[in-house]
């Protein structure tokens, strides 16, 4: 993105070995992230990678920037402090579906709401990997895991729909098996000023292999995914023979042949209403939309703090210990 970046992927790759299982989807996410970093033109020191606990949360050890591998579920709260304290850092958070949406759910809610300027990469394998295979908030109803031997009894969270419900300012989804697309989406997320959610469909070959096979497999993905492209019709299928139309307030899949061309929806990232509409594209009857659902401008809390403080300092001048203590109602003895 920055034509004359002086850095290469090597500059962002630490020496230590990456300890994910062979075939783990996290590898692909890592390499695309490092590619994007190397293209920003920023030096490695200008980035802070923060994570909680989980396989995915090992991320910070695998990028040669400043990194903080914290505790389960708290990455966003910690990153919020980091970013508000030092808005000059480019802050990135890597989280798993359990880390970010189970124990970390509350911090997710409020980081989105505050529009803290950071990139949040949610590596969603619909399972707890590090603890060896329990269900997560994104596991599908009925999924059999060690803690749900007869299948789970709850509906999953759709991270995109949730973030839309919180009026997120940048919401996107991509897949570990589609490097080009991932690279494009992560680049967009980096460029967005505000909280950028990148929901990545990630395969865990060990504990939940094939969870996203439909969406990833070259054979099937044309039918199982919907690639959102700004200004373009929402077509999918091998021959782009299928499309999304609206039935008033809900989306519907149709055959291009069967519908009036102008009824086929056209994607517009900047139309909040459409984003909310697309967030309903969940579940078996729909292709999974990949791409940027929405991007909009809004104040970020980190900059708001700078603005408020500066306005006061301009008015009153920078405080000193003397001005601090010798204030209010004072009196002198002797």
């Amino acid at each position, binding site marked *: 993105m920055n034509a004359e970046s002086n850095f290469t992927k090597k500059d962002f790759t630490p020496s230590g070995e990456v300890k994910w299982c062979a075939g783990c989807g996290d590898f692909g996410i890592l390499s695309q992230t490092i590619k994007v970093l190397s293209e920003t033109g920023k030096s490695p020191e200008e980035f802070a990678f923060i994570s909680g606990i989980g396989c995915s949360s090992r991320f910070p050890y695998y990028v040669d920037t400043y990194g903080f591998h914290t505790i389960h579920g708290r990455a966003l709260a910690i990153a919020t402090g980091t970013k*508000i304290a030092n808005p000059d850092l480019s802050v990135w958070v890597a989280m798993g579906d359990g880390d970010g949406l189970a124990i970390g759910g509350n911090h997710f809610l409020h980081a989105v709401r505050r529009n803290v300027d950071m990139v949040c990469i949610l590596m969603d394998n619909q399972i707890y990997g590090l603890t060896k295979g329990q269900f997560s908030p994104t596991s599908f109803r009925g999924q059999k895991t060690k803690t749900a031997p007869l299948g789970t009894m709850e509906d999953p969270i759709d991270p995109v729909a949730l973030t839309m419900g919180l009026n997120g300012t940048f919401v996107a989804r991509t897949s570990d098996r589609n490097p080009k697309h991932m690279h494009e989406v992560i680049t967009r997320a980096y460029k967005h000023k505000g909280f950028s959610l990148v929901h990545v469909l990630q395969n865990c070959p060990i504990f939940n292999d094939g969870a996203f096979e439909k969406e990833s497999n070259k054979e099937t993905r044309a039918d199982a995914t919907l690639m959102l492209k700004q200004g373009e019709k929402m077509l999918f299928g091998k021959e782009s023979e299928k499309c999304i139309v609206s039935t008033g307030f809900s989306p519907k899949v149709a055959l291009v042949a069967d519908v009036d061309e102008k009824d086929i929806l056209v994607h517009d990232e900047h139309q909040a209403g459409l984003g909310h509409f697309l967030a309903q594209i969940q579940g078996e009857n729909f292709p999974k939309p990949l791409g940027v659902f929405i991007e909009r401008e809004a104040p970020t809390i980190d900059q708001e703090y700078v603005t408020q403080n500066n306005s006061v300092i301009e008015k009153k001048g920078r405080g000193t210990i003397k001005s601090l203590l010798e204030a209010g109602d004072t009196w002198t003895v002797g």
Partner: protein
Amino acid sequence: MNEPLKIQELDKVVIRFSGDSGDGMQLTGNQFTGASAHRGNDVVTLPDFPAEIRATPGTIPGISGFQMQFGDHAVNTPGDFPDVLVAMNPAALRANIKDVKKDGFVITDSDTFTEAMIKKAGYADDVDPLDAENVLHKQVIAAPITSQTIETLKDFDIDKKSKARCKNFFTLGILFWLYDISPAFTIQWLKGKFAKKPMLADMNIKVLNEGMLFAQNSGHFQSQYRVQPADLKPGMYRSVTGNEACGLGLVAASNLAGLDLFLGSYPITPATTVLEEVAKYKDHNVKAVQMEDEIAGVCSAIGAAWAGYFACTNTSGPGIALKGEALGLAVITEIPLVVINVQRGGPSTGLPTKTEQSDLMQAMYGRNGESPMPVLAAKTPADCFHMTIEASRIALKYMTPVILLTDGYLGNGSEPFLIPDEKDLPVLKVTQRTDPKGYQSYARDPETLAREWVKPGTPGLANRVGGLEKDITGAISHDPENHDEMVRLRAKKVQNIENDIADLEVLQSPHGDDILIIGWGSTYGSIRNSVDKYQKEGKGVSQAHFSHIFPFPKNTGDVLKKYKKIVVAEMNLGQLAPLLRATYLTETIPLTKIQGSPFTEKEISDVIDTLI
């Protein structure tokens, strides 16, 4: 106008203001406090807010109270039993009358003693609260305060309700006259406060003067009283509550360290006002952030500390319980962090508006694994300022989270604060490493054993830390010996702080080493007064009060050896005592109370007398 009365000298006076939340008792008390402080008395105050939810006006749960003691010497506490009770309605009278000293004054608003109000206060139908036997041995001044106030303001063009609202200044006037205190302070304050609404200022001033005249002329009082100025250390003073002092201490520490302050917090009684105080100082580029909960509060602070800023979080007991896991992260990553716990009554929600000292063990041990953190305690409202700076000094110098314990009594109570000169404050030198050569995340300063602080953004020093055990290079290590060594190193680092703190001071009795009364935190004043009394009586009773609890001052063992009997006074079931017993194998005699307030002198002597 009758003869000027003679003026009697007193060495100290205790006044309790009591009325409905709407009666402005906190304000009245603060005004009287300000005036007597300005005249040079030592003054200690304590508000008593109604518990949790505001109750119906006129009922006892609705009562808001404010007690203050002023004297010609260090008074140390707001006093046990009032010389004067201001009771703005029957409920206030009923709730407080039993505490008033024999022959003490009781000033009430007779206009409020209607049947309805008397009933609301919970008196039986047929009793007259002001009837002699119900106020036995008290001097009752039942003044028609409301009606007098309204009468006084008859010429003002404003509704009765607004006029009546001035009545607390009538009461204040009575007290100013009674204790021969000039109203100048309050008059000036009123003019300032109502600069934009001069009429309100005039109204209140008129009522204030009327109150003084009433006191002088009503014939209720046989004399006036005067409390001479105390010989306080010369200098500039202001009155601070403990929570204000903590807030000021944090901002001051940030200036001393040359690092901007980040406070990650979440409201909780009685700690919220620390956040509210700090939030004022945007001119110091303070970033005070109200997060979504206590966990996010401490986590955001950890994120800011890791980012290279001066970070703090504050809360009360339940909040500390929630922060425990994250504090462990600060311990293992060795990040500087100040944690202030304004303690309240527990367990669980417990008695949130009452004070207690029952979070000491939680401060010591409320985390998983071997997770040592220095623990400090402040002993008076003004001391909260100095101990906050001390906590900051230790955190920044030793790269460690530090817990400072205060409590609701300190947080809400106030006393004169001698404003220090910047040059008399400790230097908090902070060096953040910038030299990339040979950096290792867990290499330690040979003296402090602290690891180095690197600010993200610094060229050439990109590194990763985290909650997993690390070796000296900062690499994750599952090596058992390395873990054993790191656990012991972290413990040693904190223990070593004993070489860098003040010795335990003893207020030594010249009359022998029979008894040492040990305390910590807000019980200082009441223990101090008792010990003074015993020493004046020629008894071998001495006092030692801990400001540093973990690690203990180095001389603690020697001090303990010296005395025949060690009494440990705490507002809990005994939390400092077991630490002393385990560390020094010394016998201790418990003096415990869990009643939401520090000891009265009597509660202490009841125990000590049996030991002498």
